[in-house]
């Protein structure tokens, strides 16, 4: 049985991240997993790289104590998107990383992060040609960029645990 106050996530390459469960209260995937399989040691997050999961967890940590009602749907028209200065780092990330964060947000089902990254992707597409958009979100470059970016954002420990 794992510690109910913390949750361990395992990325596609086996790197583990142990964080307070409260960080992930906006992730529908994690909440469902905790309800159904919370007695297991760790939750596998396939298709997500350590670097990207690190970033997602940073987002979750920043917003862990937000009191706003969790979004049921990122496209909810009754709750218009409002830029949050705490998310500036996410808005400033390179195009290929933004694409991966968008995917990770969708996999982990975090509507607030989906909305943030989707809005940012839309603003970057704004005014671009199809060629430029292809160059921005070139899928072939993603793997290499991942490796390099892991080192840049650092802070992933031996087991990838976030130090609080």
């Amino acid at each position, binding site marked *: 049985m794992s510690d109910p106050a913390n949750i361990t996530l395992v990325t596609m390459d086996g790197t583990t991240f142990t964080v307070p469960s409260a960080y992930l209260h906006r992730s529908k995937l994690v909440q469902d997993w905790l309800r159904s399989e919370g007695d297991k040691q760790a939750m596998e997050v396939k298709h997500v790289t350590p670097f990207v999961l690190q970033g997602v967890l940073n987002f979750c940590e920043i917003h862990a104590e937000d009191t706003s009602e969790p979004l049921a749907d990122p496209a909810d028209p009754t709750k218009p998107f409002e830029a949050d200065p705490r998310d500036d780092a996410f808005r400033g990330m390179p195009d290929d990383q933004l*694409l991966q964060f*968008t*995917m990770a947000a969708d996999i982990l089902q975090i509507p607030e992060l989906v909305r943030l990254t*989707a809005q940012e992707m*839309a603003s970057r597409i*704004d005014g671009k*040609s199809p060629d430029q958009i*292809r160059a921005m979100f070139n899928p072939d470059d993603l*793997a290499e960029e991942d490796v390099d970016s892991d080192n840049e954002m650092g802070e992933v420990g031996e087991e990838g645990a976030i130090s609080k």
Partner: protein
Amino acid sequence: MPKIGTDLQTILEPNPSCPRLPPEILYHIFSYFDLSSPENTDGVFDLMAASMVCREWCEVARPMITDEHIEESQFMDEEIDDKFPENLQRFASLLSTSKILGMNYCTKVNIVIIAINEFLGSPQCVDDARTLTNLPTKPEDHDALFTILALTTPTQLIVQIDKPAGYAPDRLHAREQFLSRLAPHFGVHALTLHLPRDEQPPDPQFASLVHVARASLSKVTLLGRPDPMTRDALSLCVDVRTASIFNGHAPTTDSILKGWRALRSINLLWPAGRVVETVSGMGDTLGDALEDIYVIGSPIMEEAEAAEVAGVLEAVVSRCARLERLYAGASEFPTMSFNYINDGVLRAMARNCKEIRLLDLAPGLGLTAAGIWDDETAPQWPKLRCLNVWNEQVVPEFVERVVLGCGALEEVYMVTEVSEDPGVMRAIEQRGFEWVCDRLWRRPASDSSVVEREEARIAT
């Protein structure tokens, strides 16, 4: 960049190493592009661009764009602003790419505006900087314009014509080249010409463009005064069905109208001048096929001018048995200004116009409708569907007779003086009209405004 000849199937093959966003996320991203207003061209262009990125994006983005989004995109039919060249080039590029990819995008656009002076650039402008008089002057701007014209079918061209008199030889040569490139695209159905207001010497270059449109032109709007050669070319466009002329030059207008014998609808707007000068020849020049006449003059019409216009209208109405709508006047000072539609015109309509669908009795002196509908001269208006009585002097008996006698009537608007008449109200109740709002009555069977439907029909 995809190569010409490669089809969408091969260009947009999914890349197996591509981290694919699920369709619902793509839809969420694309929904940030604002398509709610035709004025927001960027949203349409962004979505078009996204649809050409890869197959997955295409499958989500393409259905989000309707033909109307592209047709009604307004960047090309508004006044040219500093974003015009950028939009011009972007739209041309997107159309070219979509053509290469074989994407089935709408090729119809509503209006393309071509300001000759701005495409040539101001003669005073010596550097490359874009200014308000020197916007789409670069070769790539010209190429973009002609790409759009080649890849689309504009429903209307709006051409702002310059004054070539006095141009230096090199500028005159540039103009000639520009107009000759334009010629293959001038076979349009609708043409709006913004012309200089003062007299111009013959302009054979532009006149030759109008000759290109001769076989196709059916709708013309003129603002200003054509040069003699353009005037002659216009008068040869014998298939023109709809014409609008604003503040024209009376003899020139008269000369053009003589050639348009197939005209069905004419709008004459002379807000700043004496409309009589233009309509004075209309009695002879206008053909018998007219279905719709709309004449607006200055806000105050003196008795003599109004009588002269009314005389012309009476002659035209007496001849045009197919007339469906006549609107003239709209005086802002009904107690001191005369109406172009007087009792004589109305009587002529009663005798000759069995196709009338919309009867507008505008404010102004000289129109009472007294004696128009008596037992001997009852109008035959079997198709009359809408009666608008804006004129306080119209006798209630006429309205009462129309309401009772015109079986197709669906909508009646009356000024207070008329609507308070007991006889009129009895007729309204007897025919089953119901009060809608203000002073408007409608028969329950009519589910939408007759005026709206009539406007739509006339526009069509």
